[in-house]
């Protein structure tokens, strides 16, 4: 077989087109390598060639998933590649979702082997891990070299149609697929061996990990919203002008609690966003676009709701670890319950 032909997918940022102000960039294709494609191409040496790079802005993709998918598929199809690679997306959430969605579409609709790569907490992982190959990476582009060294051998294997082994052998993220195989020892013996290891406190590998369904049952509805005390919480980073608590623009380590008593409207003189990773222009111009204080004040006055809670809580959802988000929210929730809040509106960007 000749050189393996690869089409690579990138977002507007990694393609060097621009940051958040260009996140609405519509799909386009360029011949050859772009940006991180160079590192991949270097890894592939003469075995494979990135013949084209498809580029799409992250906001455009996520706000128009179906249309973006079909347009990107059209562009990929023109080059009739042997393999498709998206990303790596690292911990960029919208980029990860785009990479997952397009990898799945190329694989299922064009029947072309495809893979992507991203950080394990990227929301793209949970959405697409069951249907596609995702190579785990570090959480930022600092891990590019490491990512390339994992992607290259796996990609070549996939393109050549070689047998792909288990996730632990090949280094991709578990898809939750069980494969039959012949073991040397019978089940009872394997079970007893595991039990003995467990009793000794040694490490053992279960043959059937229990799925982790962390779901919370919906709470009962509010009976009378006109009596209810409603609180606002946001991961969109809305803070008083100047960001007094210095909430980080990404990977937030804290949240803020802000008094909005007597405030009827968030203005560009008084509030802003601390959030990186999305174009802050619109939120800085009018923070009500993220945190609807103006409307809730009107409704409070009209008696449509009981009251708007005196404090709102805010953090930045950009690349923030799941563990931190969980911790912030459980602290926030405890305070809200203690303050007699009945229901919460949480807004995300």
């Amino acid at each position: 077989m000749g050189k393996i032909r690869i089409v690579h997918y990138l977002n507007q940022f990694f393609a060097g087109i621009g940051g958040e102000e260009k996140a609405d960039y519509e799909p386009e294709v360029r011949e050859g390598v772009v940006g991180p494609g160079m590192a991949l191409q270097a890894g592939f040496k003469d075995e494979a060639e990135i013949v084209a790079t498809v580029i799409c802005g992250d906001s455009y993709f996520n706000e128009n998933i179906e249309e973006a998918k079909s347009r990107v598929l059209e562009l990929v199809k023109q080059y009739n590649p042997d393999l498709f690679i998206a990303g790596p997306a690292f911990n960029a959430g919208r980029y990860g979702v785009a990479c997952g969605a397009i990898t799945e579409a190329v694989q299922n609709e064009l029947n072309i082997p495809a893979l992507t790569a991203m950080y394990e907490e990227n929301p793209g992982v949970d959405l697409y891990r069951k249907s596609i190959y995702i190579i785990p990476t570090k959480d930022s582009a600092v891990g590019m070299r490491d990512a390339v060294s994992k992607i290259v051998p796996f990609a070549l294997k996939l393109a050549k149609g070689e047998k792909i082994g288990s996730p632990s052998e090949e280094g991709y993220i578990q898809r939750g697929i069980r494969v039959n195989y012949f073991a040397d020892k019978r089940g009872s013996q394997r079970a007893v061996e595991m039990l003995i290891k467990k009793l000794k406190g040694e490490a053992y590998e279960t043959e059937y990990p229990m799925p982790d369904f962390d779901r919370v049952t919906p709470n009962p509805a509010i009976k009378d919203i006109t009596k209810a005390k409603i609180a606002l919480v946001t991961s969109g980073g809305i803070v008083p002008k100047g960001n007094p608590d210095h909430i980080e623009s990404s990977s937030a380590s804290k949240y803020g609690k802000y008094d909005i008593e007597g405030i009827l409207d968030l203005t560009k003189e008084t509030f802003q966003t601390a959030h990186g990773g999305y174009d802050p222009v619109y939120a800085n111009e009018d923070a009500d676009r993220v945190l609807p204080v103006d409307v809730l004040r009107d409704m409070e006055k009209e008696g449509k709701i009981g009251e708007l809670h005196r404090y709102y809580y805010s953090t930045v959802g950009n690349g923030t670890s799941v563990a931190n988000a969980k911790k912030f929210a459980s602290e926030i929730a405890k305070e809200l319950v203690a303050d007699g809040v009945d229901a919460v509106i949480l807004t995300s960007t």
Partner: protein
Amino acid sequence: MVKEIERAGLPVVHICTVVPISLTVGANRIVPAVAIPHPLGNPQLTAEEEKELRRKLVEKALKALTTEITEQTVFED
């Protein structure tokens, strides 16, 4: 975050643009928003139209909070 608030016993509605992410993280009441950088606004509208749009979204969110559900529900129009 939505899940932790729900776990504490408060009904919570998530207004967000990328609904698949909200579904994966486990929000129960979801209202789809306008766009990532301005979930509850649209800078192309006049100020009055924009506020009207925001009001509609908030009303939808309040309706979600007053609707009994048994599983994850996306409140479309």
